[in-house]
């Protein structure tokens, strides 16, 4: 058993607003194995983004409040890390791509400066691996590792020995090297003429370009875990397709552990190895992508799959899930989904649903499919 890159267990997050509290995450637990892509799907407001922000502890506290749980990243519980040590984990340890590419780049700097900042952070940490810092490494590597060719090695500057040489080597990387790395990062995300893009300000770029640059920045730090929080949602449909294609190619190429969050079942089905389905702040089902999509073991997953529009087909009205998402500050007693569940039994209304119990083949110790429905096995 390989040690997972990220182990989230029992994570609960509230948003405290006035005297009320919105239970944005309740008892969320899952693992991400090295090199695996884990997708999370769910409706708007089910806690997907909260989860994405809670892992690198980016939630604004207040209003958010992490009540309990562990976020163990490469053996360190991030919740126990003092706040000032967190920057050492972010970026090179846990990278992130956000939902709104339009606001994610600093309007005051050119593309070069922004990507260079990310590259500098990684280079600095590679050079001075501080205690608790996460230098680039882990499962992240390009499938085509840059092999140093002879001509390049020979053309390297002759190093000066002694204290002076050491002092020289401690200097921050020279800008031509930095520039080459920035260009490399931009080429990785299929930007055709990075030389031009480097000189532009974010407001001169389209949304798709900005998202590519965000992805380039995140990847240039070579994180052990990349969190992509709905990276395509804010883009229009054609650009979504482009960025998604890029993401899929990069996932193959980069082989990092990725937490991919989306409300689009199709996207998750295509990208993820394992899928978590979220409802009202809970992970209601978690398992390998094929099992989730072919033999869902939670009524919500089933309803969600049925409600997904089948493309190119006109079968009349779309299926919907009856009722509406519960108010997160006043969750129903018992299972959160029972008011909308067609299979709800009397005890579903009273007793809280179990936390992810293995189902299907996993019950016999094979696979990792789990459902939070007490009648998972009995579902018709």
């Amino acid at each position, binding site marked *: 058993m390989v040690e997972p890159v990220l182990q989230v267990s029992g994570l609960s997050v509230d948003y405290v607003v006035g005297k009320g509290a919105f239970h944005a995450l309740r008892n969320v637990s899952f693992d991400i194995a090295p090199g695996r892509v884990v997708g999370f799907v769910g409706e708007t407001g089910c806690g997907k983004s909260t989860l994405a922000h809670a892992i*690198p502890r*980016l939630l*604004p*506290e*207040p209003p958010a409040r992490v009540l309990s749980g562990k976020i163990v990243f490469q053996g360190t519980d991030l919740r126990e890390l003092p706040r*000032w040590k967190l*920057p*050492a*984990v*972010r*970026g*090179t*340890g*846990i*990278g*992130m791509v*956000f939902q*709104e590419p339009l*606001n*994610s*780049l*600093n*309007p*005051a*700097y050119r593309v070069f400066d922004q990507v260079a*900042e*990310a590259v500098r*952070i990684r280079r600095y*940490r590679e050079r001075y691996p501080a205690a608790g810092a996460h230098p680039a490494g882990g499962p992240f590597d390009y499938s085509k590792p840059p092999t140093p060719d002879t001509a390049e090695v020979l053309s390297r500057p002759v190093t000066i020995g002694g204290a002076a040489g050491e002092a020289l080597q401690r200097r921050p990387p020279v800008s031509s090297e930095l520039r080459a790395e920035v260009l490399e990062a931009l080429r990785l995300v299929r*930007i*055709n*003429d990075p030389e*031009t*893009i480097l*000189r*532009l*300000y974010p*407001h*001169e*770029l*389209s*949304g*798709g*370009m900005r998202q590519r640059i*965000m992805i380039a*920045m*995140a990847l240039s*730090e070579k994180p052990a875990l990349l969190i992509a929080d709905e990276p395509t949602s804010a883009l229009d449909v*054609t*650009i979504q397709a*482009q960025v998604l294609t890029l993401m899929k190619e990069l996932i193959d190429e980069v082989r990092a552990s990725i937490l991919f969050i989306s409300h689009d079942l199709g996207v998750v089905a295509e990208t993820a190895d394992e899928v978590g389905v979220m409802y009202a702040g809970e992970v209601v089902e978690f398992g390998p992508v094929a099992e989730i999509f072919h033999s869902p073991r939670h009524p919500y997953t089933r309803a969600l799959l049925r409600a997904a529009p089948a493309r190119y087909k006109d079968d009349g009205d779309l299926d919907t899930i009856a009722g509406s998402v519960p108010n997160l500050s006043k969750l129903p007693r018992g299972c959160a989904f029972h008011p909308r569940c067609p299979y709800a039994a009397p005890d579903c209304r009273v007793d809280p649903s179990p936390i992810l119990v293995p189902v299907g083949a996993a019950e016999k110790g094979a696979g990792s499919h789990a459902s939070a429905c007490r009648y998972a096995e009995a579902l018709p």
Partner: protein
Amino acid sequence: MGTSPTSSSAPPATPLAPPPPPPPATPTAPAPRRSQTRAGLGTFARVLLANRLSFAGFVVVVAMGTIALLVWVDPSLLLRFSPTQITPDIGQPPSWTHPFGTDESGRDIFSNVLRALPLDLGLGIGIAGLSLIIGGGLGLVAGFWDRPGTVLGVVSVAVLRLTDIFLSFPSLILALAITASLGRGVPQIVLAIVATWWPYYVRLVRGEVLSVKHQQYVTAARAAGVTEVRILARHVLRNILDPLVVYFTLDIGTVLVTFSTIAFIATPLPYPGPQPEWGSMIQFYQDWLAQYPWTVLFPGLAVFVLVLAFSLLGDGLRDVLDPRSRRVFVRDGTEPEPPMSAGPLSPPPVDARGSLR
């Protein structure tokens, strides 16, 4: 993705020149083709030139600065008389020998007004700068680290309450009271004005920091592993700098007026003396207003011109510093600059200035 923002922000085409043909559609290259937004000196000059008033302000400020520097280095370069020198021309109106006239004892007003320029200009910049550093620094801390329950959170609340206390006094009255208790002298007036001036910068900077620090790019920087201090210095400060510089430039004029007012009303600096000051000059000559009006007119005019120049420059800076409005003025760098002064009726691109904040 293929549309470049250049086309949307291009200035209105001049009636004579046909609009440039649209760039050929390149579906595979989503990038805007060329762009020049170098905020270099060339851009600076072009943007300032585009707006004649702010250019005038810029010229006046530069000219005044140069004169002030020359006078400060060696007054005899420009001035024929020393400020206290008594000439035989008593109460003369402006003439070639005495451009601003002379007073009742024959002192040259021009020499005195120009001698006061380095002091007044320096005080305007210095007091505003000191307030900017003190108030701005406190505002940064109060805005950025306002998490309740932390040490810095408590500090920021304390700073804000202190600011409220200071702001609850009318600033001019408070400054007058402070100078009245401290006595005459430049340091006293500086202290009095700075004491009443910094709270405005706390408010301004804190407000700007609050609006910037919740921007997605700050979170993105944090997610990239940038430390908090560096986020504040590099991402937050940089984005509030533009309004701050504009406000600061406008503020220099206000400080000048306030300093002169305090000197005029409460604690004039010794005049006549080796170091004249405009407010004190006006105070000294007010009794001679009817007989020798130029003695009051020219120090007053000096204050007026300098304040106006800083206001116009501040407005112009706003255009230079906002990259979005800068685009309108500076087109593609490979093309010649569009004629900004095409005719007396061609107005500056109004939408660029109107789109600000």
